[in-house]
């Protein structure tokens, strides 16, 4: 990459991505500045920090952050860096604390970020240096939508609602899909995996309807063996009810039409969970309580949503999980899958939601690891920079895509093109390359 303006058109064309976009450390550095450390990023769900003093540590881009509810009840994104000489003040992944104390020289902060105490303060007073106002720095923007907390390290971003735009209705559907009382993140350790590949491969994949018939064929074959029904719902063109929706600002969704689901293709969540310990008994109970047909239809609806939503750049809502992608370096990524449960639902339903996540996702799932392997293969393959551009052209239609939203068949790549339009907008934002 040469000095001067970042030439976005060298990286993203309307129908393809240049391999440097995935492999160049300089591109990654700029992405961190312009996408993850300037724009809105998803940080966590309010239900993870329900009580005063609750916190979870995370990252916004490369920057360590404490997602904390202060004693005043407010949720903040505090940069996890002591104002003295920079040590992290919070070491745990999650917990509850009134104070964050830096154990290097003992500076102590309230859980609102305010500086509560400095060791031997007279040494500063003597030289006229005012340390009292050195609170933990909070992300200048922190806002939420239906419990989903987003932050930005730039004060200049548009309001969150404007940023989410029409994608907000997909968050609504995720939240309202089951009991109607909303979702909360299940406490405890989530699924978390890492891979040696660029973060954008996960971003693209979250709304990729083109791949399941190939990447996950072994899973669908396994289900077909179990049920006696061929379950390969996403493969034949024109036969899928799924539509690929590109929304404003790089958000996207794979969306079953109203009232339709993969059930018509023999892929049901109640069959996916059936062989998990305890699940068959629960299914039988529901069937005898509600009648088989009602029970199955209802279970298929509440075990997981039939939605894949990708909120640019790092949030995914898939089935019952909140998926968060964390770029670590140009070829290293960590992904966390937080299980959600339906508030107020029959505990047996939430039991089945966890089983549905386990069977497919996580480090030992029978679906997710195959996606991860594809990311690894892409990263290795993209090192063949001599080839240059990828093809991201399926279903390309300028007339439709010039606008802010588009819709294509289940395997259209309009969703990914929308992600890269947003990427271009953000990467093109500043003159010069960095500092």
């Amino acid at each position, binding site marked *: 990459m040469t000095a001067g303006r970042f030439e976005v058109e060298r990286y993203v064309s309307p129908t393809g991505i240049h391999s440097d976009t995935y492999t160049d450390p300089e591109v990654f550095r700029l992405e961190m500045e312009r996408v993850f450390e300037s724009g809105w990023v998803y940080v966590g769900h309010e239900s993870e920090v329900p009580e005063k003093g609750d916190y979870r540590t995370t990252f916004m881009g490369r920057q360590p952050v404490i997602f904390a509810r202060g004693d005043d009840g407010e949720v903040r994104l505090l940069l996890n860096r002591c104002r003295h000489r920079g040590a992290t003040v919070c070491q745990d992944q999650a917990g509850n604390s009134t104070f964050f104390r830096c154990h290097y020289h003992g500076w102590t902060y309230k859980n609102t970020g305010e500086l509560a105490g400095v060791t031997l303060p007279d040494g500063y007073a003597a030289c006229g240096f005012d340390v009292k106002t050195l609170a933990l720095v909070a992300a200048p923007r922190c806002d939420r939508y239906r419990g989903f907390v987003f932050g930005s390290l730039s004060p200049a971003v548009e309001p969150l609602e404007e940023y989410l735009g029409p994608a907000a209705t997909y968050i609504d559907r995720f939240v309202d899909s089951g009991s109607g009382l909303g979702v909360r993140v299940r406490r405890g350790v989530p699924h978390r995996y890492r891979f040696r590949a660029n973060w954008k491969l996960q971003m693209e994949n979250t709304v990729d309807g083109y791949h399941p018939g190939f990447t996950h064929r072994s899973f669908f074959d396994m289900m077909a063996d179990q049920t006696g029904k061929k379950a390969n719902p996403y493969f034949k063109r024109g036969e899928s009810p799924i539509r690929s929706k590109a929304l404003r600002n790089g958000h996207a969704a794979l969306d079953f039409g109203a009232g339709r689901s993969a059930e018509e293709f023999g892929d049901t969540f109640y069959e996916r969970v059936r062989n998990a310990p305890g699940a068959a008994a629960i299914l039988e109970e529901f069937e005898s309580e509600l009648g088989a047909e009602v029970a199955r239809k209802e279970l298929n609806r509440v075990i997981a949503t039939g939605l894949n939503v990708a909120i640019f750049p790092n949030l995914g809502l898939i089935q019952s999980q909140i998926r968060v992608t964390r770029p670590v370096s140009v070829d290293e990524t960590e992904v966390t899958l937080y299980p959600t449960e339906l508030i107020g639902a029959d505990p047996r339903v939430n*039991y089945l939601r966890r089983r549905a996540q386990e069977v497919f996702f996580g480090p030992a799932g029978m679906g997710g690891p195959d996606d991860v392997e594809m990311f690894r293969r892409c990263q290795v393959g993209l090192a063949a920079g001599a080839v240059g551009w990828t093809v991201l052209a399926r279903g390309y239609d300028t007339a439709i895509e010039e606008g802010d939203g588009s819709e294509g068949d289940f395997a259209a790549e309009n969703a990914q093109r929308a992600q890269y339009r947003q990427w271009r907008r953000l990467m093109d934002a500043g003159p010069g390359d960095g500092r």
Partner: protein
Amino acid sequence: MTAVLTAPDAELLAAWTERASRLLATESLLLDSRRYEEWIELFEEDALYWIPLDGSSTEGGESLNIAFEGPARLRQRVARLRSGIAHAQEPPSSTVHCYSSVLVEDLSQETATVRSALLVVHCRFGEQLLVAARCEHRLVARDGRVRIGRKRVDLADVDQAQNDLSFVL
């Protein structure tokens, strides 16, 4: 705490120590040579193969797990691994399962709990990846055979991001 100090019955302890060491060695051999179908035969029909995310969980259902499955699901897992299109394991990793620090506890004539340290070396694309865990086997002796009633694998770094674990630990 330790079975060694409080052994009520030295003979029973000796018998279970022998069974445990045979079972762990057999398991290790079957897994490392990918004789998965024979490995599943080591389990009781109502057995549990369990990799928890929540170390304090005692039965697994109330938490999310990395793996939580009985023989029916294990058979599916193995059939999928054999399919040639379980991409994360294509080609299959080669593994070495090392059990050590074996303690045999909670003895009865029919059952015992075996606690061990497990190190799985998982070779992939020229790298040797390590999976470090504490392991607990609940064993059942019946009809002259010893079977696994429950195998629980607590990863030492369970709260950290994991590499592929879609093979069998």
